[in-house]
């Protein structure tokens, strides 16, 4: 099957004192059922992070190994290792790329605390399990995020 190339645009967002642009792309997550999301593609994030409420509703395995994830200045959030199927949506349905068994971290909501990662960050697509499958180019001046599928022989 020939390698596919997906091209997305940046999301311009108004923030305090101006605007910023973020690479947000359309995906569908599938566990025992599926749901589409628009998620941040983050080269600074080691792994894909999914809030536990989403993971439960799409039926991901929540019994994996426990770990912790850390942001720049936070004290850590409990997380569970899991996997899911991830579909990177193409403008034409035939261009959609399906990745199976993508490793993800499920961020666990802290009991009685509303300020944790699951309520305060969007879903983040990180390096592990995704960047092995695509060569990714960010062309801000062209307003393009290019995901070029990597051939099997090139994967490490």
């Amino acid at each position, binding site marked *: 099957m020939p390698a596919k190339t997906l091209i997305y*645009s*940046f*999301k*311009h*967002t*108004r*923030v*305090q004192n101006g605007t*910023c642009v973020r690479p*947000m792309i*359309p995906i*569908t997550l599938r566990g*025992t*059922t*599926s*749901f*589409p*999301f*628009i*998620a941040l593609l*983050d080269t*600074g*994030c080691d792994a894909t992070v999914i*809030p536990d*409420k*989403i993971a*439960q*509703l*799409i*039926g991901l395995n929540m019994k994996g190994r426990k770990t912790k994830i850390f*942001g*720049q200045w936070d004290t850590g959030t409990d997380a569970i290792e899991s996997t899911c199927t991830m579909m990177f*949506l*193409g*403008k034409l*349905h035939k261009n959609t790329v399906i990745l199976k068994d993508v490793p993800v971290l499920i961020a666990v909501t802290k009991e009685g605390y509303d300020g944790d990662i*699951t*309520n*305060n*960050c*969007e*879903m983040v697509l990180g390096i592990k399990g995704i960047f092995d499958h695509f060569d990714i180019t960010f062309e801000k001046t062209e307003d393009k995020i290019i995901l070029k599928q990597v051939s099997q022989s090139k994967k490490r």
Partner: protein
Amino acid sequence: MLMGKQKSPDYEDYEWFLKQDLSSYQNKWFAILHKKVIDSGDDVGALMLRVKKQHPKEEPFITRVRTELSIL
């Protein structure tokens, strides 16, 4: 858990999302269907359940946009 067979998500809804100023939904989760925000809230789980109940045959996108500058 959510069940049922749905249509594919509409890529045009993603393109619509890119063009909109959605800062009025600051830091909330929201659902997009047919080029509209159809629901929003702080609790993504509750939002997904409401959306699936109201639109069982459709595939609305769920997303969230931070309106603060953020770094890792």
